[in-house]
């Protein structure tokens, strides 16, 4: 019996454009296995599909007695520099602004069970991650995801990452207007857009419906958009305050105001202009300085603004900039049931405490938002299916993931809240205390991340466990504090904006390493993450839970009044005072006295930093032109296959498309704008590469450019091309692509020589 693949099984349910991209990825996997693609090129190819490496994927692991080889069956085959093919990896699934349908959730449950370790993980960017996935399972997974409209494209790599937004958008009491359609439009306009392919580093975008509340957290984003209404001739005009150049990382930076008001129709063109300036002037060689925040800092926000305005003026008009505005309500959600008040009698046990912390009223009367607290952002396939069913039953269909690693239901009618709560309790997700001290946030840390220094998840799991026991006894002002941890200075746990933040570090004590965390106090979560916390000192990992209690006790005992917030207190008291508070927890017994200090939470191995690898967060820096040339070659391969299958007309058309793709890559490499239409590509090629003679071979001169012009002139006849015609064309295509590579190498060599 012949074997059916997922692709064949799903057939038309895979949208053609998504299917084509996955086909390309499948082709790249095949070529990599044949040794026809470099490790660097393949790494960037997979990273742009959200297919990451994981800890130990260099084939080495410290088992507590020293580093040992992990001998995978694949031999020398690699999926990136120093990344073993067979080593399990992480798949990041993009969930724009965190919105999930019940159907999507059902599929995610299946995928977690079949390809991962039966855990779905909500990230601090409203994505879902699956861990321990084999590279060869990813293609099937992507086809299956495509059938429910989920892509992993550009979930990683140097491109626009998942666009996040306030999860309460559209139902919030404070918003200027619903930012959902704009976040949606931004996501799909820039997905695969040529102007965001040439970045030296990732680009994170967030939308917020208001300035004062934290839900969008635009302050630490590469580009943030805050909804603003402005009076214009007696009418309320929608627009955005745009900020750029924010970021966390080792040195957090607040975003700067690019404009106080960008009208809605200018949102996408302005963002496109920002992208083009960043792609052109952003750092490429040193990835440590390649985020846009460094560019804004280097040239100043005023010069950056001038460059963006100049760029905006040169942009070619695109109807898609505003097409979505005409149908602005397309993303709006409708309630399933009539609104009603919350019952006051016959309530299930625990409901009142849960509703106090996990329920908030919507702007629409009779409807509520219910937060499902996910421990460390994790949930199981069984829970996922139940959550999908609850969405179907109570909200019509949808859920949203939050940057605090939770899930929310919107549009829940008040009278349904007790039964929703009861159903959540039955699946172990009815815990109270959302957005409070037990609702900790953590990046993956040393559990799975190659860059992790200390176990942020292990620590947060322990803190959560201990605080949950005493939660009800804690002072209300302590209950509402937020705790977040990052396993390294990349700050994915967003610890800079927590009341109590923790950053994983390592310290040497008596010749051995001890996991530690830097305590960062007083970060401002409110006002869109307006200010960052203060590092007060390093605490051994095993003593962090006690130190948290000491800090919160000190706050309650010494605050100036009951009204003094934790942030205000930290600001007033300062670093020195807290050093004294932490001092008793910073002493470390010798290894012989207490070896437990020398291992991390949830990991009995003696602590080491030997497992830290080379991070893939930054992606591999592969210029956009190389991608284009690679894609052109792939199209030529496909054309040759079609010719072998005796389909000459399709082969000719595919071959011509390969030429256009190579030409397009060179035009864009020279920083000129070009569309997808053959006429435009050929016209731009003629102006920028042929008439300038940049493309001309030193010996053959313009011969290979003429192949493109001739093919273009003759393209109407491809539909009836016979084998001989198609064969001759494919020969010319091959020469044209070779000439394109040579041209690219000449341009690159000249740039390097000029730089030196």
């Amino acid at each position: 019996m012949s074997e059916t693949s997922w692709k064949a099984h799903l057939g038309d349910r895979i949208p053609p454009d998504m299917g084509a991209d996955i086909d390309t990825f499948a082709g790249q996997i095949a070529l990599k296995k044949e040794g026809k693609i470099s490790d660097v090129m393949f790494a960037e190819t997979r990273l742009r599909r959200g297919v990451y490496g994981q800890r130990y994927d260099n084939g080495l692991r410290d088992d507590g007695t020293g580093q040992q080889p992990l001998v995978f069956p694949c031999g020398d085959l690699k999926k990136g520099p120093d990344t073993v093919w067979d080593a399990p990896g992480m798949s990041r699934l993009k969930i724009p602004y965190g919105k999930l349908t019940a159907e999507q959730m059902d599929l995610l449950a299946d995928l977690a069970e079949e390809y991962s370790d039966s855990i779905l993980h909500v990230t601090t960017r409203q994505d879902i991650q699956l861990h321990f996935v084999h590279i060869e399972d990813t293609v099937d997974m992507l086809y299956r995801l495509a059938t429910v409209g989920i892509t992993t494209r550009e979930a990683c790599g140097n491109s626009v990452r998942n666009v996040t937004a306030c999860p309460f958008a559209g139902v919030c009491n404070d918003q200027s207007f619903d930012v959902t359609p704009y976040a949606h439009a931004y996501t799909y306009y820039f997905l695969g857009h040529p102007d965001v392919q040439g970045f030296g580093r990732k680009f994170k975008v967030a939308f917020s419906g208001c300035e004062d509340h934290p839900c969008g957290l635009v302050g630490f984003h590469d580009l943030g958009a805050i909804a603003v209404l402005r009076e214009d001739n007696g009418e309320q005009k929608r627009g955005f305050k745009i900020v750029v150049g924010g970021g966390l990382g080792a040195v957090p930076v607040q975003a700067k105001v690019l404009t106080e008001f960008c009208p809605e129709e200018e949102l996408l063109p302005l963002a496109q202009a920002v992208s083009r300036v960043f792609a052109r002037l952003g750092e490429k060689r040193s990835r440590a300085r390649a985020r846009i925040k460094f560019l804004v800092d280097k040239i100043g926000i005023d010069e950056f603004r001038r460059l963006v305005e100049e760029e905006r003026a040169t942009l070619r008009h695109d109807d898609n900039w505003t097409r979505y505005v005409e149908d602005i309500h397309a993303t709006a959600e409708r309630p399933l049931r009539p609104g009603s008040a919350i019952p006051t009698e016959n309530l299930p046990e625990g409901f009142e405490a849960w509703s106090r912390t996990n329920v908030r009223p919507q702007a629409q009367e009779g409807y509520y938002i219910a937060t499902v607290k996910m421990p460390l952002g994790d949930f199981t396939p069984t829970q996922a299916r139940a959550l999908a069913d609850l969405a179907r039953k109570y909200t019509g269909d949808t859920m949203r993931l939050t940057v605090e690693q939770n899930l929310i239901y919107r549009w829940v009618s008040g009278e349904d809240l007790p039964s929703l709560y009861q159903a959540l309790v039955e699946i172990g997700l009815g815990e109270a205390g959302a957005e409070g001290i037990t609702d900790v946030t953590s990046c993956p840390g040393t559990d799975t991340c190659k860059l992790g220094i200390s176990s942020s998840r292990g620590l947060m799991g322990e803190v959560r466990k201990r605080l949950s026991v005493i939660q009800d006894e804690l002072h209300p002002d302590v209950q509402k504090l937020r705790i977040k941890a990052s396993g390294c200075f990349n700050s994915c746990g967003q610890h800079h904006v927590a009341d109590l933040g923790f950053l994983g570090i390592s310290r040497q004590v008596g010749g051995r390493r001890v996991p530690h965390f830097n305590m960062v106090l007083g970060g401002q979560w409110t006002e869109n993450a307006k200010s960052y916390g203060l590092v007060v000192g390093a605490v051994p990992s095993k003593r962090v839970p006690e130190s948290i209690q000491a800090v919160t006790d000190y706050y309650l005992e010494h605050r100036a009044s009951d009204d003094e917030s934790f942030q205000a207190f930290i600001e007033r008291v300062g670093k020195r005072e807290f050093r004294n508070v932490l001092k008793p927890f910073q002493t470390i017994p010798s290894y012989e006295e207490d070896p437990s200090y020398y291992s991390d939470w949830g990991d009995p191995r003696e602590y080491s930093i030997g497992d830290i690898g080379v991070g893939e967060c930054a992606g591999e820096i592969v210029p956009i032109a190389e991608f284009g040339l690679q894609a052109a070659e792939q199209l030529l391969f496909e054309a040759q296959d079609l010719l072998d299958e005796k389909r000459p007309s399709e082969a000719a058309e595919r071959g011509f498309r390969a030429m256009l793709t190579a030409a397009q890559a060179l035009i864009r490499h020279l920083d000129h704008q070009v569309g997808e239409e053959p006429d435009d590509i050929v016209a731009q090629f003629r102006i920028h590469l042929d008439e300038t003679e940049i493309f001309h071979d030193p010996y053959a001169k313009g011969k290979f450019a003429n192949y493109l012009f001739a093919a273009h002139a003759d393209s109407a006849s491809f539909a009836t091309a016979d084998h001989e015609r198609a064969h001759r064309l494919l020969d010319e295509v091959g020469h044209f692509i070779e000439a394109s590579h040579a041209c690219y190498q000449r341009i690159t060599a000249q740039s390097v020589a000029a730089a030196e």
Partner: protein
Amino acid sequence: MTQANQAQKFQIKLFLENPEGLDLAAVIPVFHDLIREKQLPELLIDVADYAHVHQGPGVVLIGHGYDLYLDLREGRPGLLFNRKRDAEGGVEAVLNQGLDILLRAAARLEERLPIRVGTERVQIRAIDRLRTPNCDETHAFLQPIVSKVASRLGAVKESVRGPAGREAYTLELSVDGGKRPSELIAEVAA
């Protein structure tokens, strides 16, 4: 027509006889030792702690070809073998090999921890939804094979198919026997 005969992705679970005393934190070092001491076949890589997840995979020993969970699913703690890739042979061979590994892991855990892995009840889940969808055809193909494999634990008394629908195809069998995992391993070795 399903392609159940080409399926490899199966889970096999044996339930704990004394779940009330289970300490998941104590399982972690044992799993780490299994990696270090290479006491089980094939490459083992890492340990993942999901004790905080309600009725989740508990603690997972991550391998290349298979994982082992100290699993809490359905509120019924047990030791679970999860075949992911690279198995050799047909379905029966894959299941037999999985059961062997599961018994060896169970014996190691019983040596180190105060837990007892029961062998009178075994649950098989077919998680490959392409080759083994949860349908009657899959059941007709797998049921006799699974019964034959389960009979290594003792004569099969009862076999109950899990509900149809979104969950993976599941078959749970009870057998006469009650032997310890170490005894069953010794029988195979003999």
